[in-house]
Every structure is written in structure tokens, then in C-alpha cells.
């Protein structure tokens, strides 16, 4: 097992399109790194460059101590699991598993032992004599996982391996993969993993660290907690979290007290935020997580008044959509208390949790409210 390093990695496709703009990323030995981002942000491209399936047009990929730019995929010490499983359709499961070892001319008994071990771990012993077309989606993905596992690679690469499965199966496979990762770590042969997904639930639950990408750039690399609590920019703030973070254009003024103005309403900046701000006044984007808005009576101190446009009852909580100026804010409130009474057309007050407001630079999107907070 080894660490993986990307150094100003670039990809320009044959048609001149630049998909990856010089990204730097370091994945520690045994770390589970998730690449996440919206469709088309070059997650797959990056992963395929690591695998050697796509040429590298700039920068380098390092696995362990070696620069692997010019190595063929088979020599890089990687294994990959594809979205559509990519099992060899004409080979039985047993041969699918052992193909890589056969190509490497491993001795027969060693292949047999490895096949036995891997199929035991993944509970696919009964499937060994079947053809891929005789497998369900979940079984096929387990075989694909086994085909990667059997090679004991330095780095595992996953490209949206669960997105062809239904929700329930996806949840159980998610657990299976993280369990497997932990198990390998406990057995003293930790596996370095790069896992591509566009599903933030997968990203948050599986990743030791998460790398958020957008348009071929890295937006932030951090552990799930940091990503959620301290998003480096408005994009990450908006991308991580359900329902999405409310991003509201606002103006910060200082005369002499700090005040935030949004939707024509001015609110004194709460203490929790004021001491974090090391910025001049001006236009900002206010980032408010739905979970960090409290429902209060209209006209309350430190709250924005907003008109309810929609109420969604979710069972364990209520999503209140309310209009503030041009923006519609979403607040997640408990089913008890005030939330139960609001209905469309009501005027309500929404009070942000001062310690958890984020302010992003209106131009660059950079989070300017992190300064004194470490």
C-alpha cells in the first residue's frame, strides 16, 4: 500500500477542451479519499488519469515513490471498479476474478487460494460458476469488487460503483465497502482508496477526506466535518448539506456597529460572527444552513422577517420555505413548537445562528468568515 500524489495534474482532450486545470492532491497511505462534484467536473477524467486509461497532458501522478505517468495501467499497482461493473461477459465469475492473476502468471495454487479468500470475504462463493449475465446488479458489483481486491493493489479506484444500484442496495454496499476498508486497515494492509461519486451522502459517510471539485478545479479537500462546518467557499457550502445551504446576497456595513442587510432588512451582526470577520464592508453572500435557522416571531431581534411560501412536512421535521427579498430561504424546524403552526402566507422571523453564519466574498465566493477560527 502506498500514498498517491497528484502534482499540478492537467488534462486537455484531443478536441482542445481542457478538463482538468492543474490540480494538486495528496492521498495518504490507507486513506479513503472521495472525489465529489457535479456532473462534468472531471472526476472520472482525474480518476482515469490515475489509472492510466487517459493520457496525462501535464503534471504528474505519483504512487508510492514512483512517477507513474508513463506506466501502463497494469504496471501502476492499481485496481479499478467501474460504474457498469465491466465484468468480462464470456467468463465465469471465477475466471473474472482470477484473470488479472493469470495474466501476471501467478502459480495455480496461489490463484486458487486468492479466489477462495476473496469470494469468502464478499460472500460470492455460490456464484463462482455463473456467468455475469446470470448475476443481479448487487452480485455483479460484488464480483467487480472482488476482481479489484484479489490483486492486492497499492491503490483502489472506484468510479461511481454504486450508481446503478437501487437505493436500498446502495446503502448496504456502502457499508460493505467501508467495512472492507476498515477490515483491511485492521489486518495491517491498509488500502489507499480514491472513490468518485456525485452523491454527497456517499461522500460524507464513506470518506476519510473529501475532495470537492468543480469544472476541473479542486474547491476544497477536507474531512467531512470540516467540509460541513467550515466550507472554504460558497460552492462547497452549497454543494455539501441537505437541504442546500441558503446563499443570500447581502451587504455588510460598519457604522460603527456591524450590520448585515439582505432583502431590504438590516440585522445587527451577532457576536458569534462579528469576532470572526477580518474583512472590510461590502457586498457578500450570506450562507445560512437550513438547520441553523430558528423560527421566531416576526420583528424579533437579530432575525429576518420572511413570508412563508411553502411548508413541507417531512415526518421528523418540517421544511419551511420563506421569501426574503428576491431569495427564498429554507429552514428546517422541529415538528413541535412554532413550526407546526406556520402555513403559507404567514409572516415569520428567521434567526440565524450567529456562530454558524458564513459570509462569502460576493465576487470570489471565498469564505471570509473563517479568519480567526481554527
Amino acid at each position, binding site marked *: 500500500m502506498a500514498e498517491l500524489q497528484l502534482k499540478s495534474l492537467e488534462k486537455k482532450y484531443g478536441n482542445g477542451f481542457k478538463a482538468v486545470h492543474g490540480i494538486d492532491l495528496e492521498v495518504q497511505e490507507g486513506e479513503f479519499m472521495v472525489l465529489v462534484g457535479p456532473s462534468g467536473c472531471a472526476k472520472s477524467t482525474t480518476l482515469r488519469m490515475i489509472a492510466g486509461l487517459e493520457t496525462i497532458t501535464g503534471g504528474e501522478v505519483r504512487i508510492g515513490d514512483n512517477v507513474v505517468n508513463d506506466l501502463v*495501467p497494469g504496471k501502476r499497482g492499481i485496481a479499478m471498479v467501474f460504474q457498469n461493473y465491466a465484468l468480462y461477459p464470456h467468463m465465469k465469475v471465477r475466471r473474472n476474478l482470477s484473470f488479472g492473476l493469470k495474466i501476471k502468471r501467478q502459480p495455480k495454487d496461489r490463484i486458487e487460494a486468492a479466489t477462495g479468500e476473496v469470494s469468502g470475504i464478499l460472500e460470492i462463493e455460490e456464484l463462482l460458476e455463473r456467468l455475469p449475465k446470470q448475476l443481479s446488479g448487487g452480485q455483479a458489483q460484488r464480483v467487480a469488487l472482488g476482481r479489484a481486491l484479489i490483486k492486492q493493489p497499492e491503490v483502489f479506484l472506484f468510479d461511481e460503483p454504486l450508481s446503478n444500484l437501487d437505493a436500498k442496495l446502495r446503502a448496504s454496499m456502502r457499508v460493505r465497502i467501508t467495512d472492507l476498508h476498515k477490515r483491511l486497515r485492521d489486518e495491517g494492509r491498509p488500502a489507499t482508496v480514491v472513490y468518485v461519486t456525485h452523491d454527497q451522502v456517499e461522500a460524507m459517510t464513506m470518506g476519510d477526506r473529501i475532495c470537492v471539485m468543480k469544472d476541473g478545479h479542486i474547491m476544497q479537500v477536507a474531512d467531512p466535518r470540516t467540509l460541513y462546518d467550515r466550507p472554504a467557499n460558497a460552492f462547497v457550502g452549497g454543494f455539501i448539506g441537505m437541504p442546500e445551504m441558503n446563499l443570500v446576497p447581502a451587504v455588510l456595513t460598519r457604522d460603527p456597529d456591524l450590520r448585515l442587510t439582505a432583502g431590504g432588512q438590516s440585522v445587527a451582526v451577532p457576536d458569534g460572527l462579528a469576532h470572526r470577520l477580518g474583512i472590510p464592508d461590502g457586498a457578500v453572500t450570506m450562507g445560512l444552513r437550513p438547520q441553523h435557522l430558528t423560527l421566531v416571531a416576526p420583528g424579533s431581534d437579530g432575525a429576518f422577517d420572511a413570508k412563508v411560501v411553502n411548508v413541507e412536512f417531512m415526518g421528523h421535521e418540517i421544511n419551511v420555505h420563506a421569501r426574503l427579498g428576491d431569495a427564498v430561504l429554507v429552514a428546517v424546524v422541529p415538528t413541535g413548537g412554532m413550526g407546526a403552526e406556520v402555513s403559507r402566507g404567514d409572516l415569520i422571523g428567521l434567526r440565524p445562528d450567529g456562530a454558524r453564519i458564513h459570509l462569502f466574498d460576493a465576487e470570489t465566493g471565498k469564505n471570509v468568515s473563517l479568519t480567526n477560527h481554527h
Partner: protein
Amino acid sequence: MVTLSDLPDQSRADRTPPTPLELKLRRQRRVSSAIRYVLLIVVGLIMVYPLLWLVGAAFKTNSEIFNSPWFWPARPTLEGFREGWETSTPYNFGHFFLNSMWIVIPKVIGTAISCTLVAYGFARFEFPGKKILFAILIATLLLPDVVTRIPQYLLFRELGWLDTYLPLFVPSWVAGDAFFVFMVIQFLRAIPREMEEAARVDGANTAQTLIFIVVPMLMPAIISVCLFQFMWTMNDFLGPLIYISSVEKYPVSIALKLSIDATEAFNWNAILSMTVLALIPSLVVFFLAQKSFIEGISTGGVKG
């Protein structure tokens, strides 16, 4: 297509008493499917009758062939086969069959290998000049055969290949049959690349990927190519006619024509008997490979 659902549903009829409207609809459906079947059978018979007649006539005497249009021989005889097999040359028909095989076998094998290689190259690799080369390949598809006959003849004469089988099969060894290359390319395009990528990640080189992964997946297409090539080569008349001049080297297609010799009265039953024999290899090969063949010509060919 007539399917089972076109037929009246008995089980449902038992449960609820049919209304007059239902009865009428059911009758209409039955009548219409009857008409369809009759039509299909009649057209089918018309198509297949000449073949039946051919087989029947092979067992008739020479005089009966012209006396009765009915295909069933009145007094079946093996006369035609005996005469036809002996031929009017020093060689019997078995010799000519063997000659055909000397052409067909190298040609089919060569075609399968070369077409797969070339198609793999075109479908899966980027290389300079690929677009132009592919355009040329397609252009040769559109070129009428006759246009190239004379230059080809001159070329092979210069090489000293006249009256040998080389001009008949060597072009196929270098993927000379653009149609087959095109067919395999189309088939390959419908196969997702992930399997090959998985093989590369598994450590297979290009040749191993081709042999262990691509060829097995391409099998239906390759079998179709072999089948077409087999039948077309067996039946090819013009090629051997142009290049083969000694009787000793004649393949079946030309040997059949030998029997229609101006110096003798035509022995039609001998000719027809040998024609029937000449059909057998193609038929046998077709039925052996039927399953893969049908998979191969129906586009896509990859199940999800």
C-alpha cells in the same frame, strides 16, 4: 408478426360469458390471423419451390425433367449423381470439391483474422491519418467490382500468380474485404470499452486484450463474417473463371459449368445433382452456425 396473443384467450373466455361485441371481435381476429398465415405459407412456398424442384429434379431422368413441372420424381434414380460425379474430365467431382476447399479455407481464416485486427484498430485506437484511411476503406466498399478487375488481373499477372489460388485468397489476408471490416467495426462500436479497460487494468497488453476479451465478445460477428465469406467464396464464379485456367485446379463453381459442354448433349440431371451437392456445404455450415449468425447480423449483439 403473429404472436400467441393474437389467438383467442381460452382461459378468459371460460370465466365470463362473452358479450356479442367480444364474440364479433374474436371472430374478426381469428379470420385475420388465418388470412395472414395462408398468405405467409403461399409466399413461402413460391420462394422455396425452385429449390425443391432442383432437389427433386436431381433424382429424375433426363427426359422427365422437361416433361413434368412437378418436383417429385416419378421414378427416383441416382443416375444423375453417378454421371455427374464422374464428370467428363479425368477428375471426379470430389477433386473439385477439394479444390474449392483449398480456396475457401485459407480465405475464411485469413478474413476472420485480418478483419478483426483491422476493425480493432479502427474502432479502438487513435492514430494519425485514421480519418482518411477509414474514408478510403469505405470508398472501396462503394467501388464496383468490375472497375478493379482489369488492374487486379494485370497486377497478379506481374506477380506470376495466374492459374494459382493466390489471387483468390491473398487479398482477404490483408483485410481486402472492406464490407467485413466495416461490419466488425460496427459491432465493436456497440460494445462498451470498459471491459477492455478493465483488462488493461488487470495487466493485459493490447494483444492479450484482443485475444482474451475482444475476440470472445466479437464471436457472433466473426462467425457471421466466416459464414458469409464461406458461402460467397463457394459460390464465386467470376474469380476462378478469370484466374484459373487448368481444369485440374477448377473449383466446384467452374466445374459445374464444365458439364455444360458444347460438344455433348446437356446432361441436365447430372448438372442438377452436382448443384445439389454443391449446395450442401453451405447449408451444413449455415445450420451449424445459425445461432451465432443470427446474433451477429442483428445489430448491437450485446445484452445489458
